[in-house]
C-alpha cells in the first residue's frame, strides 16, 4: 500500500529520468520530414504577374512597435470546458459561445456575455451526435451542422439568446446554404430543389420547383469589398444549372429575375461577387471564366499542372486563388484580373484560409500568416493567426502569445497584451478574443 504521494511522485520522476531518449538530431530529422510531408499535403499559394514578370513580394514593411510591451490581457468569465477537450468558439455580437462534446457523449453549449463575463444562459446539452461538422454564427441564429448517430446530417438552428434549438433541417453532403436577412435558403444537391425558411419559425417562405435542367449550385450574390460575411447583403440568389446556365432570383421570394446568356459548363468552383460569377474549370492548367448579364468569357488562366483548391473575390475585378502543383502538392496563392495573373507567391505550409478585405489578401490557417497588398507587396509576415477586424486593420495572435492590432496598409503595430504562448486557434472581434487552450476555451478582453 503506497503511503506518501510526494514519494510516489519522486519515484515517477526518477523513472522518467531513466527513460531512454533519442538525440536532438533525431528530432531535427523528424522536423524536416514533417515539413516535407506538410508540403506534400497542402497547397502553396502563388500569384503571377502578367506583362511584367513575377511580382516580388518580399518588401516587408513591418514597423517597429510604437507601443510598449503590454501585460497579460484581462480574462472575461471563467474558462469553459466540457471535459478533456476544448469546445469550439464563436462570437455573435457581444456574446461568446462554446460548443463541444462532454464526457457523457452529449454535445453541449455555453455562452458568456463579453461585457460582464456572466453566463448568458446556463450550459446545456443539445443532443448526442457522431460529430460537429460546422458552426456558423449569424445575427439571426447560431447554426450547428452535425452528423447524426445514424450517419445523416442535420442543421440545428439555435436561438443566440438562449442557445435552445428553434428548428432543424436535414441535409446531405454537397447541399448549399445561403443566408439572407430574412430567410435561410437550402438547395438539395441531389434534386436541385431550393427552399427558403423563415429564421424565427423554420416555416417555408418559398420553394422553387425542380427543373429539368437541374440546379447544381446556389450562391448568394455578394457585393462590395466589405469584410467577408456569411450573410448575403445584396438580396440576390445566383444559381447554376447542370447545363451551365446562370439564373438570378430574388432572395426574398425565389422569383426568377433574369437568366444570363452563355454558359459556365465545366465549372467546378464558383464565387459570385458584384453582379459577376467567376468559375474555375479545367484547362491545360485551370481556366477562370467570368460571366455577367452580357455573357461569359475567359478571365484568366492558371499555370499548367496546377489545380485550384480555394478562390475568393479580392477587389474590383480581382480574383485570388490557392492553387496546388499536382506533382508535389506545393501550394501557392495568386491574384488574377482581366489582364491575367497579377502576382503569384508561395504559401506557407498548412495555409487553409484565403480571405480578402479592402483589396488586400490574407493567407492564414497555418503556423504563419501573410498579408498581401493588391499589387503583390507583402504587408505582414506573422507567426500565428491573423484575421481581419476591418478593411484596414487586422488582429494578430502570435505563437508567442502576443496579441496586437496591426494597420493593414502601414504595418503599424499596437500591442494589446499577451495570452499564454501557443494559445491557438482564436476567434475575436474588436472587443474580445476567444481562444482554445489545451483543454478549455478562454476569453480575454481587448483594450479599445
Amino acid at each position: 500500500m503506497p503511503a506518501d504521494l510526494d514519494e510516489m511522485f519522486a519515484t515517477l520522476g526518477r523513472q522518467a529520468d531513466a527513460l531512454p531518449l533519442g538525440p536532438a538530431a533525431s528530432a531535427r530529422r523528424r522536423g524536416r520530414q514533417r515539413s516535407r510531408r506538410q508540403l506534400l499535403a497542402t497547397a502553396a499559394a502563388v500569384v503571377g504577374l502578367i506583362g511584367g514578370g513575377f511580382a516580388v513580394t518580399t518588401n516587408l514593411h513591418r514597423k517597429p512597435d510604437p507601443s510598449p510591451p503590454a501585460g497579460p490581457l484581462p480574462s472575461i468569465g471563467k474558462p469553459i470546458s466540457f471535459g478533456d477537450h476544448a469546445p469550439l468558439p464563436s462570437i455573435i455580437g457581444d456574446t461568446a459561445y462554446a460548443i463541444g462534446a462532454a464526457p457523457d457523449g452529449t454535445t453541449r453549449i455555453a455562452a458568456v456575455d463579453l461585457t460582464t463575463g456572466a453566463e448568458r444562459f446556463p450550459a446545456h446539452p443539445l443532443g448526442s451526435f457522431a460529430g460537429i461538422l460546422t458552426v456558423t454564427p449569424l445575427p439571426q441564429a447560431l447554426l450547428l451542422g452535425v452528423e447524426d448517430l445514424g450517419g445523416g446530417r442535420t442543421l440545428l438552428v439555435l436561438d443566440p439568446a438562449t442557445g435552445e434549438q428553434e428548428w432543424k433541417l436535414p441535409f446531405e453532403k454537397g447541399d448549399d446554404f445561403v443566408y439572407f436577412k430574412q430567410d435561410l435558403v437550402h438547395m438539395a444537391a441531389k434534386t436541385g430543389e431550393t427552399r427558403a425558411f423563415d429564421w424565427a419559425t423554420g416555416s417555408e417562405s418559398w420553394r422553387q420547383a425542380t427543373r429539368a435542367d437541374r440546379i447544381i449550385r446556389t450562391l448568394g450574390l455578394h457585393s462590395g469589398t466589405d469584410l467577408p460575411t456569411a450573410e448575403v447583403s445584396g438580396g440576390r440568389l445566383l444559381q447554376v444549372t447542370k447545363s451551365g446556365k446562370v439564373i438570378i432570383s430574388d432572395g426574398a421570394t425565389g422569383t426568377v429575375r433574369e437568366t444570363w446568356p452563355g454558359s459556365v459548363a465545366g465549372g467546378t468552383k464558383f464565387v459570385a461577387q458584384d453582379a459577376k460569377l467567376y468559375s474555375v474549370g479545367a484547362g491545360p492548367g485551370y481556366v477562370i471564366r467570368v460571366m455577367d448579364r452580357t455573357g461569359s468569357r475567359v478571365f484568366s488562366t492558371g499555370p499548367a499542372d496546377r489545380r485550384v483548391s480555394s478562390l475568393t473575390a479580392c477587389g474590383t475585378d480581382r480574383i485570388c486563388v490557392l492553387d496546388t502543383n499536382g506533382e508535389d502538392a506545393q501550394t501557392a496563392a495568386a491574384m488574377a484580373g482581366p489582364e491575367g495573373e497579377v502576382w503569384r507567391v508561395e504559401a506557407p505550409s498548412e495555409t487553409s484560409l484565403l480571405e480578402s478585405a479592402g483589396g488586400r489578401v490574407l493567407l492564414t490557417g497555418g503556423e504563419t500568416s501573410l498579408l498581401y497588398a493588391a499589387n503583390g507587396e507583402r504587408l505582414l509576415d506573422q507567426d500565428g493567426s491573423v484575421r481581419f477586424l476591418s478593411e484596414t486593420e487586422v488582429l494578430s495572435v502570435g505563437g508567442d502569445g502576443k496579441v496586437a492590432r496591426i494597420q493593414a496598409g502601414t504595418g503599424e503595430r499596437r500591442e494589446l497584451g499577451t495570452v499564454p504562448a501557443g494559445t491557438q486557434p482564436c476567434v475575436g472581434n474588436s472587443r474580445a478574443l476567444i481562444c482554445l487552450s489545451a483543454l478549455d476555451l478562454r476569453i480575454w478582453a481587448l483594450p479599445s
Partner: protein
Amino acid sequence: MTDDFDGFYRDTSRRLLRYAYGLTGDAGEAQDLVQEAYARAWQRWRRLSGYDDPEAWLRLVVNRLSSDRWRRIGVRRAWAAVEAPLPPAPPPSEDTVLLVQAMRTLPAVHRRALALRYLLDRSIADIAAETGVPEGTVKSWLSRGRAGLAAALGIEDDTTTTREGVRHAR
C-alpha cells in the same frame, strides 16, 4: 542555429520527458510525444528561439497531443517505422503503476497542474502564468488533484498546509 537547438534540447528534453510521462503514464508515448514536440519546435526554431519561454510552448504541444488520443495514436504510427527503436525502458515500479492509474482518473487540468508542480517543481505563480488562470485556481486544482489521487489510491486524506498554501494528503 543547429547548435542553439541542440543545446536547448540538451537542457530541456529531460524535463519535458518527465512532464510527458506524468501526463500519459506510458513510457513509449512519453518518448514519442517529446520527440514530436521537438520536431515541431525545430520546424519553427528561428521564431521559437526568440520566445521568452520556448519550453512552455513545448509543454503546450505535449498537452495537446496527450489530450487527443487519436492524434497521439497517429503520431506514434507515423513515426514507428521511421525512427530506430530506443533501448528498452526499465519496468516501472509498483508505486508508479498505481500512481499512473490514479492519475488517469483525474480531470486533465488536475493532471497538468500536478505534473507541473510535483514533477517539474514549478511554483504556483509559474503554473498560474503558464495556464492563464489565477493562483487560487491552481491551488484548487492541486488540492483537488491530490485528494482525487488519495481517494483512488486508498490513502488517508490527512491534509496539511504546505508552503504554497495547498492543503494536501500526507
